[in-house]
């Protein structure tokens, strides 16, 4: 131990002979951190692979910790539900009446669709396979929007697959470990999704901004987009299957079109990972990198 000269701990440590080594280590580590950032820019895949290994190791711990948190959230939600039970009941009754009308319409359309499909010998989309997974970590924070789920390679999850929750598209798989996978939310700064807007089937790219709103990019000039229009995936680029609900246009101001996603980050407890057998852009990029 360093000699106590009546100085506070840190200064004492830094001024002893051991302190020189410590100071050297400190500078070395700073350089190391900067180096890691550079490495992340140069060899993205290597860094992602490392990230997957570590999150995979931490997944069981996160799984255990997330259970009590989920139980408490459930309890609060149940309590709130109990309070406005009557209003909720009325609302649901009205909604049921409305949905019954839609159901009749859906049956009609389904029957017509079947006859027309038979007439045209239309090639249907491949059957989708679903993997259900629980959200075990949401690191939150202002810099990245990502979730960790407790299904991985052994459950058939692969990079690039679309992730859905009850309300709509959540994001896509960006890293897969043995028993866990990382989901990049559509609200993340790096998220770009090919979408179509409204009945006009206007193509666009939906970009995340690290906030709870999204932005439409690369629209055809003069495209007829209105507030309230639904935004769904387009299936272009082969990254996502078409027609998954994403959100709704909420604001058009100064040429900036804002979309509110259907996804509600705080309420996602479980997700469905969809495997349409699509290879996707991400998978191709990876395959190329492996070949090199």
């Amino acid at each position, binding site marked *: *131990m360093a000699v*106590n000269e009546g*100085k*506070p*701990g*840190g*200064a004492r*440590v830094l001024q002893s002979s051991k302190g020189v080594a*410590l100071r050297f*280590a*400190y500078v070395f*580590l*700073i350089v*190391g*951190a*900067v*180096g*890691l*950032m550079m*490495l*992340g*820019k140069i060899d993205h895949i290597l*860094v992602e692979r490392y*990230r997957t290994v*570590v*999150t995979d190791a931490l997944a069981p*711990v*996160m799984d255990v*910790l*997330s259970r009590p*948190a*989920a139980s408490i*959230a459930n309890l609060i939600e149940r309590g709130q539900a109990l309070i406005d039970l009557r209003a909720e009941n009325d609302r649901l009754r009205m909604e049921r009446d409305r949905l019954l009308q839609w159901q009749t319409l859906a049956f009609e359309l389904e029957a017509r669709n079947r006859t027309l499909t038979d007439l045209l010998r239309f090639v249907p989309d491949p059957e989708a396979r679903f993997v259900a997974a629980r*959200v075990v*970590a*949401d*690191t*939150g*924070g*202002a*810099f*990245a*929007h*990502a*979730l*960790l789920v407790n299904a991985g390679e052994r459950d058939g999850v692969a990079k690039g697959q679309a992730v859905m929750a009850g309300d709509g598209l959540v994001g896509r798989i960006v890293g897969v470990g043995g028993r866990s996978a990382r989901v*990049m939310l559509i609200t*993340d*700064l*790096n998220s770009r999704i090919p979408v179509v807007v409204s009945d006009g089937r206007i193509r666009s790219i939906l970009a995340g*901004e*690290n*906030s*709870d709103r999204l932005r439409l990019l690369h629209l055809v000039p003069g495209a007829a987009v209105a507030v309230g229009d639904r935004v769904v995936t387009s299936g272009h680029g082969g990254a996502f299957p078409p027609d998954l609900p994403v959100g709704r246009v909420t604001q058009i101001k100064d040429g900036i079109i804002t979309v509110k996603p259907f996804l*509600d*980050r*705080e*309420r*996602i*407890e479980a997700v469905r990972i969809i495997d349409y057998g699509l290879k996707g852009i991400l998978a191709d990029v990876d395959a190329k990198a492996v070949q090199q």
Partner: protein
Amino acid sequence: MRPGVWQKLDVASRCMTPVALTLALVIVNAVPLKIPGLTPVLPVLALIGVFHWALYRPELLPPVTVFLIGIVQDTLAGTPLGVYALVFLAVYGGVVMQQRFFLGKSFTVVWIGFLIVAALASALTWILVAVLHGALINPKPVSFQFIMTVGVYPAVAWILMRWQNAIVPAED
């Protein structure tokens, strides 16, 4: 009387708790809380841990562990690898250098000190992530995150202080 093997082991394991606690803060940070509106502005709890131990017992949280804790934070939070490692190291170095000013001061002064440190740390993180992503990041959630971190400081610091007094062996 010379201390026995068990006593040495006991002291050694207690000396490791600052690192373990700070690491635990990183992991607790990632638990999905499902409280509406909270997730994007979740405080960076580990920052409080690094600040606290750098201020009171830096020898128990050596730079290399600060670096590793930052890496784990980066891994879990999804920030580019190295960002929080650098930010935590910067906070650690800054606090250790200013330690003599802080020691013996009232809690309020330390809290204000943390406010300044957290503001600088938030700004540094913001700049690093923006540069690495090559895009401007909405500063609003970042500033809320900073306010949240400063807001929860007293609670977390209180726990760490109690722990320090009860579990961590005193300086010799």
